């Protein structure tokens, strides 16, 4: 039998109050082992207080070739930013 362990994506919360962030990936036979391996591979220096592991095949990524239609429409909508609106200087707290 020759079967490669699946790949898992590892997310770490560095301290409470912050979000989990992607740290990298690793191979493990199952989720439990992925947590154990993530602890050894990615948190040897107190990098985290919480781990998420997700098998890579369950992640759906957007296609970079579609980046134009996905993200460009936001480029010409300056009115979504506060600086678009002109107010007199004496207005405070706005």
């Amino acid at each position, binding site marked *: 039998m020759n079967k490669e362990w699946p*790949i898992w994506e590892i997310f770490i919360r560095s301290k409470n109050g912050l979000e989990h962030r992607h740290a990298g990936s690793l*191979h493990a*036979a199952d989720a439990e082992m992925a947590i154990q391996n993530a602890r*050894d*591979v*990615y948190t040897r220096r107190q990098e985290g207080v919480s781990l998420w592991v997700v098998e890579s095949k369950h992640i759906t990524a957007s296609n970079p*070739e579609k980046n134009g239609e996905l993200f460009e429409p936001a480029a010409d909508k300056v009115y979504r930013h506060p600086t678009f609106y002109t107010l007199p200087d004496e207005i405070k707290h706005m």
Partner: protein
Amino acid sequence: MDNKTRDLEVEFQARIDSGENIEAKDWMPEKYRKTHIRQISQHAHSEVIGMLPEGNWITRAPSLRRKVALLAKVQDEAGHGLYLYSAAETLGISRDQLMEQLNSGKAKYSSIFNYPTVTWADIGAVGWLVDGAAIINQVMLTKTSYGPYARAMVRICKEESFHQRQGYEIMLTLCNGTEVQKAMAQDALNRWWWPSMMMFGPRDEDSPNTEQSMKWKIKKKTNDELRQQFVDQTVPQAEILGLTVPDPDLKWNEKTGHYDFGELDWEEFWNVVKGNGLCNKKRLADRNKAWDEGAWVREAATVHAEKKANRRLNKAV
């Protein structure tokens, strides 16, 4: 090359030139992909093989303090290998393929690990010189154009500086010790200096890949530039130890603001690359032994995971 590919390549180069990173799912020229698979996997293999000469001294470290440090360092190298294998896998090669290339001898790893660690001072010299040379290369690579590789390098560089400091501290302790201990440190420097200098690869004029690598921002400095940087920063460190760098041509050059140094033994360089170094065969044999003897563990873990998954499934029904 058809027109569409040519357009894509022009666009790709423009992204690189503007300082953008390339990510796994982006279009990239086949040669960029292949070069990265080769370079990242060689780098990963070097971390993995690099554990062998140091692991050799874990059980014989002279104190508990030295032992925990060396253990932690070797464990870091394993971690670095894993970060890098994952980065290589984003380019469409599997872990098993990577392992096969290493174990069969098809893939290269850094020649430096084909030299033996015969005394405890060698562990000092390896940390100081070999990790020192590696850090110079790796700091440059944190700015490399391929995102997953650059991110792995940032993580590695953060961890690597303890490696060099623990090595230098070993050297410092030996140099402040007895005459015999200092002689041992000098002997280690004598044997590791030139192989460390060779870590930066062939001279620029003999390195045909450099131009393309610079254009794609895989490398940001040439082999010779990095080698000069290593000499300039390491020679003063040797002086503090009171040791002599084994190069009669080594001399500070007021005009250039750099050290001049002697010619490397390129015959030895190519000889070790071709597999005829002192330890090439032993390293590969040890690596294959570890892989083969670990086969049952990998299989058992897979079967155990399947059993647990089935049990959960049955409970749910």
